[in-house]
Structure formats: structure tokens, C-alpha cells
């Protein structure tokens, strides 16, 4: 919008495309993640993340698709979330063309904040995936979960494939979305996809480029080289499965795992200014261990929404006086309203 107002139509088109691409991606990977979460909920009959764990062995397909969703939403290459984030960064970096320095400075800072949210999203999804799918099952129902039926699997696989496809063929998607800015502003991002279908070059080849498919190809290539390089060295020593080393303390159990609360504790503590956190540890009573309870409140919620809510409630109380209960009073309301409206019209 800012770019459009200042006459930098090309960059405005780029930013618009980035935003639209991002919406499209969100539709894909959020849908995927919701499907996965639904499948997990249905099969494990658990709503509490703290009671899940180890589902990757019981539900491999769902787990694989969920992993794709997690990588996409954390904006990591080579999946689709990364492409739109990359486009957004590119648009923001063009902020220097603006004559106002303030805006030029705000845009990159805002995109650094975007990076922060991206990294926090990655942290969050490492936690979700690690707690739900990896590790040991934390409750008996979860230990006996079954893979979801074919229909559910199929839908997830479809979306996961879309995530990958939108990630490695960004030029086609950009070309498809390009119609919208062309219609709105009369300028499209013709250069982006023109160079070659392999390369995404929003501004110019010298400025920035991203070859998504070749990146994937490079990844696979180096993977294969490493794998075959290590293969002959393996000779006859195979993988031996053993129990987990327990430091000699006796068997490990699932309660010793890092829980999701524990996992996010450092982040909670660092960003504690942003939330209203009340942590309580109650000392254990007879026969029971200590209890830990945690309440998270949003300062924004407390400072902005709660007062607004109170004001609205008060207003509602005032207005409820109007509701006298008498039929004639209601009729007189509509009568006066009618009179008022007539007066307004005339």
C-alpha cells in the first residue's frame, strides 16, 4: 500500500503477491495441521498434549504429513511457507526506495520482527511435534492409538504434496497470482517468472534469486553422496538396537521426558514482560507429589480488551433498562423510531 501510494508500482505488486501467496500457503498448511490434529485427537482420545508422545510409531503417515506442515509453517526451505516469507522480505528490503527515511527504517525492522515470529513459530512446532509424535507415550490410550482411516490419510497426503509443490514451483504460482495485481494496479510482476521457470527473481537477477527446485535437488544430491560414501565403510556392522542409557539409575519412564511446559519455559521466562504469568507450586500433601499450576494472561488482553468489555457490559446494563417488559412501551418505541426516521428522511 505504501509503495503504491508513493508510485513504486512494481514493488507494490511484489508485496501484494507476497501477501496473497502467504494467504494461500496458510490455507494449505493450516488445513493440513488441523487435519493432522484432528486425526490425532480422534485416534488417541486425548486432548492434553502432556499425555501424548511417541505417536510417530503408531501413526506414521499422519506423523509424516504433520512434519511437512510443521516445516512449512515455520517458514523453512524448501516448503511453501518459506517462499512467501522470502518474497515478503524482498519487498521489505526495497524500502530504501522510499524517500521517507522513517518508513524505510520501519519496514526492515518490521521484517526483523517477522523473523522473530518465524523463529518462535519454529520453536513452537518443534515443541508440538516433539511432544506429540516423538519420545515415549505418556498415557496408555496414546500407546494404543491406531493409524487413522484411509480417507483422512489421503486428505493429509494431498495437502502435504501441495505444500511441497507450492514450495518448489513458486514461479508457476506467482504467475497465477500475478493476474490480481495486474487487474488492480495495471502492473504485474512480469519479471519474476520470466527469467526461467527454475528461478524466482522478483526484482532482477543481480538483486536476488531463489531456485527452489535446484535447492531441493542439491539437498537430495548431497544426501545421496553422504549416504553412499558412508555405506561401504559400514561393512558388516549393522545397527544395534539397545535400550536407552539411563545413567545407571534404573529404567527411564515417560514421566522423565521433557514436557511441553518445560520445553517452552525459557522462552516464557525471556518474554515474561509480554504476558501476565502466575506460576504456583503447591507443596505436596500426604501421598501426593507437589502440584504445579501455571496461568498465562495476555497483557494486551488485560489492558485493552477487559476495560472495553467492561464498558460494553455497563452500556448493556444501561440499555437493558429500556427493556421494561410492557408491551405498550415497546410499541411506543417503534412509534417514536418511525417518527424519528420520517423526520430524518424529510
Amino acid at each position, binding site marked *: 500500500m505504501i509503495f503504491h501510494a508513493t508510485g513504486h508500482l512494481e514493488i507494490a505488486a511484489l508485496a501484494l503477491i507476497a501477501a496473497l501467496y502467504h494467504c494461500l500457503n496458510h490455507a494449505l498448511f493450516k488445513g493440513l495441521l488441523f487435519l493432522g490434529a484432528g486425526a490425532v485427537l480422534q485416534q488417541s482420545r486425548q486432548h492434553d498434549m502432556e499425555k501424548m508422545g*511417541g505417536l510417530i510409531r503408531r501413526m506414521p503417515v499422519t506423523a509424516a504429513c504433520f512434519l511437512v506442515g510443521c516445516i512449512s509453517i515455520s517458514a523453512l526451505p524448501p516448503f511453501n511457507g518459506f517462499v512467501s516469507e522470502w518474497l515478503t*522480505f524482498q519487498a521489505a528490503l526495497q524500502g530504501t526506495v522510499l524517500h521517507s527515511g522513517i518508513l524505510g527504517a520501519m519496514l*526492515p525492522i518490521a521484517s526483523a520482527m517477522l523473523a522473530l515470529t518465524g523463529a518462535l513459530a519454529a520453536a513452537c512446532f*518443534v515443541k508440538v511435534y*516433539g511432544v506429540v509424535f516423538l519420545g515415549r507415550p505418556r498415557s496408555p490410550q496414546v500407546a494404543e492409538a491406531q493409524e487413522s482411516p484411509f480417507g483422512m490419510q489421503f486428505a493429509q497426503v494431498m495437502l502435504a504434496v501441495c505444500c511441497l509443490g507450492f514450495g518448489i514451483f513458486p514461479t508457476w504460482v506467482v504467475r497465477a497470482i500475478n493476474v490480481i495485481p495486474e487487474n488492480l494496479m495495471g502492473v504485474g510482476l512480469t519479471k519474476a517468472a520470466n527469467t526461467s521457470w527454475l528461478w524466482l527473481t522478483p526484482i532482477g537477477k543481480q538483486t536476488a534469486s531463489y531456485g527452489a527446485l535446484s535447492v531441493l535437488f*542439491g539437498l537430495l544430491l548431497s544426501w545421496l553422496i553422504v549416504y553412499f560414501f558412508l555405506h561401504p*565403510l559400514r561393512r558388516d556392522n549393522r545397527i544395534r538396537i539397545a535400550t536407552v*542409557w539411563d545413567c545407571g539409575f534404573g529404567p527411564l519412564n515417560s514421566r*522423565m521426558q521433557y514436557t511441553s511446559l518445560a520445553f517452552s519455559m525459557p522462552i516464557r521466562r525471556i518474554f515474561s514482560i509480554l504476558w501476565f504469568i502466575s506460576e504456583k507450586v503447591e507443596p505436596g500433601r500426604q501421598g501426593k507429589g507437589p502440584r504445579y499450576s501455571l496461568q498465562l494472561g495476555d497483557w494486551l488482553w488485560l489492558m485493552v480488551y477487559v476495560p472495553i468489555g467492561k464498558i460494553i457490559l455497563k452500556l448493556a446494563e444501561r440499555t437493558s433498562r429500556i427493556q421494561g417488559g410492557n408491551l405498550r412501551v415497546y410499541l411506543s418505541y417503534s412509534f417514536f423510531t418511525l417518527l424519528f426516521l420520517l423526520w430524518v428522511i424529510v
Partner: protein
Amino acid sequence: MTGWIFAMMQTLCVVLFAPFMAGWVKWLKCRLQNRRGPGPWQPYRDLLKLSRKEVLLAVTASPVFRAAPYVVFSVTVVAVSVVPTVSVQLPTAALADVIVLVGFLALARFFLSLAGMDIGTAFGGMGSSREVTISSLAEPALLMAFFTLSMNASSTNLSTVISHLVRSDFILYPSLIFSSMGFILVAIAETGRIPIDNPDTHLELTMIHEAMILEYSGRHLALMEWAAMLKLTLYSVLIANLVIPWGVALTLAPGDILLGILAVVCKLLALGVLLAVAETVQAKLRLFRAPQFLGLAFILSLLGMMSHIILEVG
């Protein structure tokens, strides 16, 4: 075509050089601390030994755990391949710019922390938790530093940025000074060096990177260790070529390349000396002091960006 072959060769060289870099720092550190220490070639022997050894896998390990070393290693190799180390005439640099590079490192970290969570021991979870915390604070500072750099060169392509820096006359950019300082702090945090994480420790409660790879053995461990060394070398190369860009070859002529190799090796060894000295004189920070360290990195990068806008463009 020669470009592509050259890119392959360069990547291979960096990959093979990485253990030496790690060993060099370790050896220097031992010397500075009045210990004899293993020689700088020791990591090669370690890696060879590990790759021959049998792999012990925990019963609770899932496919993610087995795939993670390969993913982490190959992603780091690809990341190395897009960084112009010896010459800026690198066709692979067009594949991915700095933002994609940050994305690669984030992807490797994602799998590393998942692997840490996989076995279900407390140490792995602890390591992953700390890793993602620190990286989520480091990433904005890192991107900010890169943004300043690319606003200076008006490109995010590493080849273009470096050749812009080499070609232009010597100009004292305040913004580049600040963003390089911020970048160096981020690099220290991301490669797990001393004020943030101690690469030598196996003391359970202070480790971050070691905690995540605690359950690995055999060739998996070798890959993980090698990837960590590569990451160290990658960041050192970035510092060497972005902060002190002189000496990077601009063409693919043999003489230039020879000079480039000489320059980059000298710069890397010098950086290793600096790192060893810094690690010797400093103590590790408490985990909850790490945000302040990274906050300083962020402020430095932010100042770099601002001084670019206020002082250099206006």
C-alpha cells in the same frame, strides 16, 4: 560449466577443511591454557573412527532420529555451497541468497532439535528447548545484520554483495562496522561457542548442542559432529568474506583462485586464533544471561541499520 565444477570443488574443499578448523581452534585453546592437547588433525581421526563404529540405536528411536543426521549434514553442505569462499564467480550463489541461507541453517536446527526430543530422555529435551530459545532470539539479529549489508549493496545475493564490497573503494561504513559486530556475536551464539555454550563440555546441566546429540553413536554421531564443524567454518567464512572482503577472487583465472585460496585460509586461521583467545579469557554465561548477549547483538544490528539510514543515505 566450469563454474559449476568449480562450485563443486569449492564445496568439497570447505567440507574437507572444516574438521581442521575445529581442530585448529581446539589445539590453540589447549596451548593457551597450558595443556598439550590433541593436534589439529585429531578431528579427522575421530570422524574416521566414528564412521567405522557400530551404530547403537535406542529402542524408542523413530525414523526422524535416523534421518536427522543426514538431513542436518546435507542441508549444511548445501548452505556451504552457496557461500562464495574463494571466488565470487559462483553459479550456486544464485540458487539461494542470504535469506535462504538463514533458512537452511534454521532447517538444520529444526531437525537437530527434533532429534533431541526423539529418544525421550530429559537431556535431549533440555538441549532442544535451549537451542530453539537461543536461536529464536539470534535469528532477528542475524537477519537484521544481513539486511543492512544487502541494503548497502542493494542485493541479497552473496556473490553480488561480496563483489560490491571488493570492487568499491575503501569507504568507512559505520553501518557495516555495527552489523559485522552484531553478526559476530550471533555467530558465536549460533555455533555454540563459549559465552553461550561450551563445545568441550559434557557437564550435563550446562550443555546445549551436546545434549541434543547425546544419544547418537557411530556414523550418525560422526555426521552430526561434522555438521557442527561445518557450521563453524561456514560462519567463519562468512565473517572472513563479509567483514574483510579483500582477497576474494573476482574471476576464475587460476592465479586469482590461488590467491583467493591463500587469502581465505589465512583469514580463517587468524579467526581461529581470535576465537581461541576469546574462549580462553571468557567464562560461559548463565543461560538466562544469554538473552542479554543476544539483545546486544540485536541492538548492534539495529544501530547498523539506523546508521545506514541516518548517516549514509540521507
